């Protein structure tokens, strides 16, 4: 009951937020929502299934372009274009399954890096569809005769998508699928010996992860209103990775915290001109040193210390990936 009150309170607060916040803050919140969904996607793949990816900007790009092009060129209704963008991106995720069944650890990371780089190279050259380097304007999202032309309206769209995606992720993690993911992450051999098909579940993980990131991409295109290939580079892949690692790997609240924190951090630092990058870097280093389980793990240390061990430490996890 207490939980229920807490959650409905939080939900009311989020629903009423546009009344108090400036349009600019709402825009940043919308971006946080975009990254939140992408981070959830990466966390399901890397945090839960143990498959390292540093090419997720590729899926974000596929989702963004699909979300923009489907209504613009094929007159797909907007409410359909977002899930479709997710599915297209999810199907692209199967490309990474090929290396994932043969490679582990850092080698898989290199393959995903290659994927991200390939997408970033294809987009500007496929001028007929993507509009090349100049990018393209995204048509305004319209829904039931309502045009989502302001940050407030987009905020509600983002809020609904974020809530749906969090609930879906919770379901996945608590299901048989989620248990298979964790088994593959922790002991691949034992998982196989218990009858968990690596092909099937790694395929599911890549599809789901790319689906999430594709949805995030579609949302991104509507929030920003303009997309160009240069935005989906390695830096963006690393940003999503850091949101996951700093928030808390293998944790849904961790994804939320990490994505929101790292989206807002540069804006909080905008007052320190010239020192921005320095403080940004230092903040990251401090989090890694003093909150090795991620920010969420740091919170958890005070609230539920006994459950702390169950989060894979980002650093440890990365070291294990690298070692294989």
């Amino acid at each position: 009951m207490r939980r229920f009150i807490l959650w409905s309170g939080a939900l009311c607060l989020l629903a009423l937020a546009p009344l108090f916040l400036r349009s600019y803050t709402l825009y940043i919140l919308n971006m946080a929502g975009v990254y939140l969904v992408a981070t959830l996607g990466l966390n399901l793949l890397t945090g839960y299934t143990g498959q390292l990816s540093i090419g997720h900007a590729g899926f974000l790009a596929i989702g963004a372009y699909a979300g923009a092009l489907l209504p613009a060129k094929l007159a797909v209704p907007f409410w359909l274009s977002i899930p479709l963008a997710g599915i297209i991106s999810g199907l692209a995720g199967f490309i990474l399954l090929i290396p994932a069944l043969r490679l582990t650890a850092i080698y898989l990371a290199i393959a995903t890096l290659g994927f991200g780089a390939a997408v970033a190279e294809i987009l500007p050259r496929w001028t007929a569809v993507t509009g090349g380097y100049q990018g393209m304007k995204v048509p305004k999202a319209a829904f039931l005769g309502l045009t989502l032309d302001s940050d407030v309206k987009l905020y509600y769209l983002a809020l609904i998508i974020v809530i749906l995606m969090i609930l879906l992720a919770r379901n996945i993690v608590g299901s048989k699928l989620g248990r298979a993911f964790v088994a593959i992450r922790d002991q691949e051999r034992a998982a196989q010996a218990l009858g968990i098909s690596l092909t099937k579940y790694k395929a599911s993980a890549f599809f789901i992860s790319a689906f999430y990131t594709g949805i995030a991409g579609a949302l991104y295109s509507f929030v920003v209103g303009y997309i160009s290939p240069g935005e989906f580079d390695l830096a963006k892949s690393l940003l999503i990775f850091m949101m996951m690692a700093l928030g808390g790997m293998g944790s849904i609240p961790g994804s939320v915290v990490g994505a929101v924190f790292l989206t807002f951090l540069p804006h909080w630092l905008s007052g320190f001109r010239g020192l921005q990058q320095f403080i940004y870097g230092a903040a990251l280093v401090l989090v890694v040193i003093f909150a090795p389980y991620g920010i969420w793990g740091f919170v958890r240390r005070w609230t539920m210390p006994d459950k702390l061990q169950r989060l894979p430490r980002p650093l440890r996890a990365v070291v294990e990936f690298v070692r294989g």
Partner: protein
Amino acid sequence: MLRLEGVSTYYGPIQALKEITLEVEEGAVVAVLGANGAGKTTLMNTISGLLHPRGGQITFEGRRIDRLPTERIVRLGIIQVPEGRQLFPDLTVAENLRMGAFVQRDHRGIKESLERVFAHFPVLMDRRGQLAGTLSGGEQQMLAIARALMARPRLLLLDEPSLGLSPILVRELFTILRTLNGEGTTMVLAEQNSHMALTIARYGYILETGRIGLAGKSEELRANKKVKQLYLGIRERSPMTPRGGGESGGA
């Protein structure tokens, strides 16, 4: 129940199993003995489908299984307890057990298996909420076996279950294995502790660098002079022991 005929397994160009022929009857315990690197684990992994043989064939109840993926073989009822336990350290005992029943669908069956497992391993009942990584070595081995039992094995493949356990725990472990066998679970037991393995096994196969060096009933193997010397550590007419060596020497 299980037949291997001329099975050869390779790691790249290196042949680890050389035309292994082996038979496991329903209800039996078959011991696979051998030194480090003889190919015991390779043999187990080949049966369970983690490795695929390049030559020969494996049949389980008349059905060819050597090309099937592991998850299909698991569904047929061949469950492996991998070497070194391979538990999920960050999951609780109960969650590990539940993972064992991954391919099971009916919930009542899972509950029954769980009760059966707790009856065999009461210590796991007490620790079901504890993280598997925090158990002692003996408890972890028990959990590894219990987890395999959750999959309702018809044939249990045990890869060095006594590894790293104290002599008392080894004895306890073998008592449990004997009980499980008495309840009808067929087992293939790869062991370095030949002495213990041959006391519960009906047949034994001795692997020597990927080949079957010797095979036979347990009593025959135990009586074999070479086996005594090389695998049971019994030396006949040894100058070191005053009684001139005997059948009672330890492994």
